[in-house]
């Protein structure tokens, strides 16, 4: 019994940043690389199932360059015995359609019983990977999940799906299934120092596209979800900036609040 958890290293832009020479992304020198927040929750959800039953394996997988290994180690520091990293230069700037193809091959190879992805990754916020992966596999799927009732062997899982405005849907789903996990489903644990140390020794399998029976041409032939034409800084808003020392700023704020309250 195995749960595969796709995780991702995301770029967060610095306060000051410049675009890459081709204008299609931020210059990586101005990005800080972090683990995607949603993946803490999906990984925790998998670990909780692992700890509640015998014989469950949790395997984190990432599609990313060398230093993306950090996000796997970060997971392994909390639990799990091995990770998988897929990379090929052809995956640079890959759109969700390509990532979905790659992950589908990893699923074929690993034969997990469940796949938990994050609901979205906060760099590009496409929210396409999990549900797209399920479609590529022909698996059932459910998105934005805030509750999972399931133990190994159960043919169905009972889920909570978070809707708009605080409404929640309870539904059941046939397994195997791909779930996209939402913030707040659990309280992700922190890794212990011992865990961090042990994680350094745990094996991470590096796979190329060829190892998965894919080529850059295959991905290109299928076409991307889209092609980026350009990125640009949006026009800044009309906000009137309140300058000065904190004392002056607060004084002006009090004035504004009183004016607005008086006018109302």
């Amino acid at each position, binding site marked *: 019994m195995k749960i595969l958890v796709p995780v991702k290293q995301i*770029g967060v*832009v610095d*306060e000051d940043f410049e675009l890459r020479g081709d204008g299609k992304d*931020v210059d990586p020198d101005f990005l800080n690389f972090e683990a995607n927040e949603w993946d803490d929750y999906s990984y925790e959800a998998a670990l909780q199932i692992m700890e509640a039953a015998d014989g469950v394996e949790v395997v984190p997988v990432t599609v990313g360059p060398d230093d993306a290994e950090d996000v796997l180690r970060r997971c392994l520091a909390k639990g799990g015995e091995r990770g998988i990293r897929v990379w090929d230069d052809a995956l640079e700037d890959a759109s*969700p359609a390509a990532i*979905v193809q790659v992950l589908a091959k990893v699923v074929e190879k690993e034969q997990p019983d469940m796949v938990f992805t994050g609901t979205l990754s906060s760099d*590009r*916020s*496409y*929210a*396409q*990977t999990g*549900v*797209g992966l*399920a*479609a590529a596999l022909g698996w*059932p*799927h*459910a998105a*934005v999940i805030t509750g999972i009732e399931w133990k190994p062997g159960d043919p169905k899982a009972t889920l*909570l*799906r*978070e*809707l*708009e*405005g*605080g*409404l929640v*849907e*309870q*539904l*059941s789903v046939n397994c195997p299934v791909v779930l*996209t996990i939402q913030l*707040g489903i659990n309280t992700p644990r922190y890794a212990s120092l011992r865990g961090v140390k042990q994680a350094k020794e745990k094996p991470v399998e590096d796979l190329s596209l060829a190892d998965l029976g894919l080529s850059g041409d295959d991905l290109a032939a*299928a*076409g991307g*979800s*889209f*092609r*980026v*034409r350009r*990125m*640009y*800084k949006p026009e*800044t*808003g*009309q*906000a*009137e*900036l309140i300058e000065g020392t*904190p*004392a002056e*700023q607060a*004084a002006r*704020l*009090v004035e*504004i*609040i009183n004016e607005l*309250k008086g006018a*109302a």
Partner: protein
Amino acid sequence: MGEILVVAEHRQGQLNPATLETIAAAVNLKGGSDRKIAVAVLAENPDDFVGQVGKAGVDEIVKVPVGVASFQSDTYEAAVLALAEARKPSVIMLPHTVDTWGYAPAVAVRGGFGCATDVFEAKYDGDELVAVRAAYAEKLHMEVDFPGKDTVVLTVRTNVFKPSEDDASPSVSDFAAPPAEARTTHMKFIEPEQTGDVDITQAEYMLSIGRGVGEEDNVEEFKELADTLGFTLGCSRPIADNGWLPKSRQVGQSGKTVAKCKVYVALGISGSVQHMAGMKHVPNIIAVNKDAEASIFTIARYGIVGDMFEIAEELREQM
């Protein structure tokens, strides 16, 4: 020239108003062209909604009876794929909502279609469809196109396009969706708990705190500050997820919309699209954030680039 096909959304018997916004986005995309706009209504009884989606610009309403009363991903995927196969639309437009997160990417993968989510601008550059969406916490916009794709799925950001007030009399047709094996089963809806706490949807003056508050122990001083100012305390999602404030205080897509709010002070909130969904409409937004590039400043009327603790301390002293 393929049509623009909009898929209507509804829940618990109510049309999601985002459907009308998506129709407005389709009308906008059509521009001066003679592209047709069709609206597909997938429902147990499509007639329940037909009267509501015949807005100006809509040429045809397609009734698609499906055997489920509420959203079911396999059923919706099969119906939209069959519609795409039969009608060969250039663009399939859906509102960007939790339901479409649950099936739009699957439609795109199964159909081999182009796909862009959370789009707030769509236009034709010659024959080329171009869509614009945000990236990196709203700090950048990205313009994308879809080379080689005859059909493109776009999910449209809510609260951007203004629904038309004008009704039209589109033709109405029927479409039989193929049967689909439903692999998820709706059990029930669970309404949000009505806690005894305040109802922020009625508040006129709000002070909301976000992740910038740092830790639970710091929440108290902002509670006191809100009281001193006579404001109602609200928060962004991480604060509620951490249990530092009750969920009923959360503003945003999965929380509450502060419908009556006149003044909204946002402290240490970055301005994610999901947070803004609940407060973007407020006429007087005052943002305090130490990051001058935070997207909250793009919708604020007044902004302070600074530390929320320093400002709060000064406010306390001066009140």
